[in-house]
């Protein structure tokens, strides 16, 4: 009896500790969202009531709206390019045997293993040497290269689980390779493709480490805009922008996950 009691209390300690760690992870972000609604003129504690004034201020801040548009465009293009070439590469790596496969698999994951700063410096200086100035396409290329490994890892993992027999059946019924991919393989790996798109979008949308190196003068994404604003002081507008970012970057994957689950369910 006492041992059961002891076990029980051990488990509740573990649970209490877990709750505390989760609070540590989320409380600061919750504070940002809370302060975004602060009516107080300086946006700090103590709160003096709720207000939407900082969101209105955001809406009228041209620099922020521009940064927002840049980020959405960049994130979307990154997601499309990265997922397309990532899916193609995963197909090659999972469905075919060829020499040097191990090396190439490692090469595809390499952008995660190289510190982002080093990647940023290398790409920047190389393109400078080619006499290409900092530009939006450079930013896009940079974002593609460090989102690519995530897409490849996710799609590969799913592709391994899709049995080859389905594809072989389609082939034996006369479908060509592209047809088989479009009608059989793609629907089966769709949840992973979708996850890849979302991963690539959010990583790009969030990135600041590489972006600060690559962005041309005058172009800001949302994170670099926040970074620039932090230089002055923490203004309530930053908290409001933070709240918007949190909502977007949390809502997009959540909606995505729900859709993916529905897709997966439809397949069964």
């Amino acid at each position, binding site marked *: 009896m006492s041992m059961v009691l002891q076990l029980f209390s051990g488990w509740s300690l573990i649970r209490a500790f*877990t709750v505390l760690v989760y609070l540590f992870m989320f409380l600061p972000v919750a504070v*940002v969202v809370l302060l975004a609604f602060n009516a107080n003129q300086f946006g700090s504690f103590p709160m003096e009531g709720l207000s939407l004034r900082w969101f209105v201020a955001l809406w009228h801040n041209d620099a922020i709206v521009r940064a927002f548009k840049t980020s959405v465009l960049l994130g979307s293009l990154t997601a499309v390019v990265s997922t397309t070439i990532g899916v193609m590469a995963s197909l090659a790596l999972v469905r075919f045997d060829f020499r040097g496969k191990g090396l190439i698999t490692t090469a595809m994951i390499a952008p995660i293993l190289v510190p982002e700063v080093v990647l940023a410096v290398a790409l920047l200086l190389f393109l400078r040497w080619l006499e290409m100035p900092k530009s939006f396409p450079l930013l896009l290329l940079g974002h593609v290269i460090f989102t690519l490994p995530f897409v490849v890892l996710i799609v590969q993992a799913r592709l391994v689980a899709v049995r080859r027999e389905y594809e072989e059946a389609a082939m034996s019924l006369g479908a060509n390779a592209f047809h088989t991919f479009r009608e059989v393989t793609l629907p089966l790996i769709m949840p992973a493709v979708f996850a890849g798109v979302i991963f690539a979008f959010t990583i790009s949308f969030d990135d600041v480490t590489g972006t600060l190196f690559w962005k041309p003068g005058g172009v800001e994404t949302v994170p670099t805009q926040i970074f620039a604003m932090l230089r002055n002081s923490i203004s309530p507008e930053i908290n409001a922008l933070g709240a918007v970012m949190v909502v977007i970057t949390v809502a997009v994957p959540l909606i995505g996950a729900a859709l993916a689950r529905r897709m997966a369910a439809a397949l069964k």
Partner: protein
Amino acid sequence: MSANDADAPGARPWLLMSPALAAVTLLLVVPVCFIVVYSFWLRTAAGGEQVGFFLDNWAEVLTDAFYRDILIQTLRIAAISTVLCILLGYVPAYFIARSTTRHKAVLILLLMLPFWISYIIRTMSWINILGVSGALNVFLLWTGIISEPLQILYNEGTVILGLVHFLLPFMILNIYVSLDGIDPNLTDAARSLGCTAWQAFREVTLPLSVPGLAAGSLLCFVLGAGTYITPMILGGPRDAMFANLVFEAIITQLNWPLGSALSLALLAVLGAVVMLYTRYAGINQLAKSFR
């Protein structure tokens, strides 16, 4: 097309891979080789670069005590953050893995959330809490415990705090993946053979979760040691990390040869850590968290 495929099945994987392979080659491999060459060039007083083979940048990076001290500081900060992540992360990972309630899915979902919440927002959120007019100071002033706001921010401690906050989900996720793969029968067997719960944990569960611990530690250490944003937001002027030096050299001073040498030095140090890890664990463990 299909007849063609039958003739040359060997070409198709390369065709499929070519865009991604070209991207990795042109945007990663070639540029990294390029900065190796660049690091031997010399920055002239006029602001241009002198092409050649000069060891000056490397001599400066390898012998200057300033760089050495910051490298040691960087490794220390990354190591402390990693250890704190282990200490804070193991128990929640264990709780999620062993919990049988319906909260399990929610806990895992919540664990993924921080990955989606902007790094810069999570970092700057601490200013709202620890800053001069942050929640903590306002609370302490209100209770009367202090009469002047405390200067808690902008030191090495807050840099570590920011890093732990950023890296903890990586650690918990990796440990969880490892713990979740352990057959519960193993601990049951240990218990039925007379182990106490603690012994069963120490002798069975803990050793079996080492791969996850190692993968999580590698990620935390490498990501932590490579950052320059956290020290810029939460650190003071003396809390620069090695990546800040790179940023300084490239963006502020426009000294690209020196910046190349500095970033290669960082790559070498962190590369050695990754090598050490793959030697003992294998890179596949890292891929497991994506399944």
